[in-house]
């Protein structure tokens, strides 16, 4: 474009009046936009300040250190009714991160399975997977969440009629109860063994790769690495004792005591988000795999590689390059969609902060701004991580 413009300028040669000068005009437009923006901002800020003083609402973030005075039913922190708003925000944020983190893992696993199933040579499996994708993608997420919460989980039998699995895991109206390990002193040996095993596995994989590059000798580094990572803690546990006891949930009075309790709100949100996002991931996986030309598979088979190796070493690495960028936006969507928890009463950051805290303090601007900022930071971190991963697997061209 530049060359055309330059050419035109040369042809014109005659002095250009200032209102026809491209640079001058560009500068003028930008100044106008900036001025409009500044005026609008001033208008809004001024009105907000006037409105807030009229309503007698203080501004600033000082309220964060006041006592919150409301309870949060599901929490990972030691939050109590007497904690501060800042602590409530932190508790809500951890709840968001928990449900998003677990949801991303579940949705990825389910999405890959469904996506591969859609490409299956088995007609029935392919059609079932296609039906799953079509149904889930065309029904609003909120309707699905309401279904899982009000339609399924809260209509489960009461505490005394719980579904139970081997007398260890119980499912009822109040959620899921499962055995939980209680750690005894000296347990820290096991995680240390796990860490050492994982480190050894990484080193082993590096060595195996170098050896294969030098000599062509393959080494089952995945199996060996898995064995090291899991085997070492197991060995340590068997030799020195695992040093933990299991607390099994048991019916006491009107409720279960002991074990690990997952409330129905969390379960409904997790199940709904995972199933919904998995449908989108399945489509991404399918298009990614289809983007790898059939010639690649055929060439791999012609070289005498086994089908599994062809999939793992030839098709998948190429498909991942197509899959990862849109996968990032699905992870972001899942995290943002976790805010729908407001409707089913799971206390995540929007419900705790933009909901309850805002209602109690009336400091709307601060509450909404902080909530948005948190999501922006989470989005930024996820994109940052996924971009790093994408660069890691991207095609290295000469």
């Amino acid at each position: 474009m530049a060359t055309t413009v330059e050419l035109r300028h040369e042809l014109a040669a005659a002095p250009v009046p200032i209102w026809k000068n491209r640079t001058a005009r560009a500068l003028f437009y930008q100044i106008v936009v900036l001025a409009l923006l500044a005026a609008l901002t001033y208008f809004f800020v001024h009105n907000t300040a006037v409105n807030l003083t009229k309503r007698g609402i203080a501004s600033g973030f000082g309220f964060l250190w006041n006592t919150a005075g409301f309870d949060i039913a599901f929490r990972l922190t030691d939050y109590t009714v007497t904690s501060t708003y800042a602590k409530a925000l932190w508790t809500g944020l951890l709840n968001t991160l928990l449900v998003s983190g677990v949801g991303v893992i579940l949705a990825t696993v389910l999405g890959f399975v469904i996506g591969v199933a859609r490409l299956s040579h088995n007609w029935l499996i392919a059609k079932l997977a296609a039906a799953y994708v079509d149904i889930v993608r065309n029904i609003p997420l909120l309707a699905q969440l309401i279904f899982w919460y009000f339609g399924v989980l809260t209509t489960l039998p009461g505490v005394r009629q719980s579904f139970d699995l081997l007398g260890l895991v119980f499912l009822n109206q109040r959620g899921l109860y499962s055995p939980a390990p209680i750690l005894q002193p000296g347990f820290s040996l096991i995680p240390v063994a796990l860490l050492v095993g994982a480190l050894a596995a990484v080193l082993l994989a590096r060595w195996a790769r170098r050896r294969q590059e030098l000599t062509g000798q393959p080494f089952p580094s995945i199996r060996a690495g898995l064995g090291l990572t899991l085997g070492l803690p197991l060995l340590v546990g068997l030799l020195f004792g695992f040093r933990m006891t299991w607390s099994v949930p048991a019916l006491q009075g009107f409720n279960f005591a002991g074990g690990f309790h997952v409330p129905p709100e969390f379960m409904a949100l997790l199940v709904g988000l995972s199933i919904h996002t998995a449908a989108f991931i399945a489509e991404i996986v399918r298009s990614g795999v289809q983007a790898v030309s059939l010639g690649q598979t055929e060439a791999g088979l012609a070289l005498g590689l086994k089908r599994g190796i062809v999939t793992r070493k030839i098709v998948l690495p190429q498909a991942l390059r197509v899959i990862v960028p849109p996968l990032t936006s699905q992870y972001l969507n899942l995290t943002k969609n976790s805010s729908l928890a407001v409707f089913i009463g799971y206390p995540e950051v929007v419900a705790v902060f933009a909901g309850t805290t805002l209602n109690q303090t009336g400091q709307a601007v601060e509450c909404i701004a902080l909530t948005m900022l948190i999501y922006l930071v989470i989005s930024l971190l996820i994109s940052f991580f996924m971009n790093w991963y994408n660069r890691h697997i991207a095609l290295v061209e000469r």
Partner: protein
Amino acid sequence: MVELAARAEEPPEQRKPDLPPPTLAVGWLGWLRANLFSSPANTVLTLLALWLLYKTLPPLIDWLFISANWQEGTSRADCVKPGACWTMVRARFGQMMYGFYPAGERWRVNIGFLILFVGVAALLIERVPRKIWTGAFLFLVYPFIAYWLFHGGLGLTPVDTSLWGGLMLTLIIAVTGIAISLPVGVILALGRRSTMPVIRVVTIAFIEFVRGVPLITVLFMASVIFPLFLPEGMNFDKLLRALVGISLFSSAYMAEVIRGGLQAIPKGQFEGAMSLGLNYWKMNAFIVLPQALRICIPGIVNSFIGLFMDTNLVLIMGLIELLGIAQASTRDPNWLGLINTALAFVSLIYFAFCFGMSRYSQALERKLAKGRRR
């Protein structure tokens, strides 16, 4: 080999006819073997899928149709059978479609949407001519007709927006959202590709900010912060606030869709337009955008589907659209606990709309791809 050679020397009439293929390789048996039972693993998968279908499909069909209650009634007690209680949907049908819109005035809503559907169909179906005029009518004239029909005034009884609800509200929000986000999205997309640094930075900041936060927070902002932004006494309607919030949100997504289309236009088109002496706006309006928008129709339809499904979040502002009203009906003491029936009905409506649109966009995508493939 010798046998074959000998066979080839035989005169044709003495040759034996070819053997038919094995029974198991042709016909429906062959299809079953190739597609469902080709290997032991596949057989296991097929049987597993069949078992899953057997476990889920018959109970679902039974619940939805066979043991469902279809008769009319006034309360849950009229639903005697164990299946879905369509009785409730029949009793609440008007509300689910129009919210609390006065029953005598509902014909206005019907006419309004009829015009819209005919217009959109004329725009989307390839064979109908005069697309530009239809588009101009829909964008420039129709909003006023719709506002007059829905809101009243000028001879029609005024109906306050607080009475609007149900599917009507869902459609109004979704259609307004898309109608506003399309032009705003075009401007944002052009701004993002602009050579002027201030404009580029401002649009990028807006787009990335909106795409980084959930719609719910935008709606929260629309509901509690927008009133603070305006001078005292300038009160504006809840529905309008929701529309502004939703339009801002979808504009950012639309901008990214359109940017994709703009990037697909080869540089020669820009240069060609400039060498003809067209200025920036003429170049975009007559050369670039017509091509770019055509490419992004599938993307636009997809983002419309997303917007359509997201409209139910306006529930957070107290606007009761389809899903909200369905959920509210099951809180009525007469119809307590029929959430699954309500959800089934609502999901069916959403599914019909969204599935139709997604099939349209897929067909269009295939058609657009056909011209590019050799």
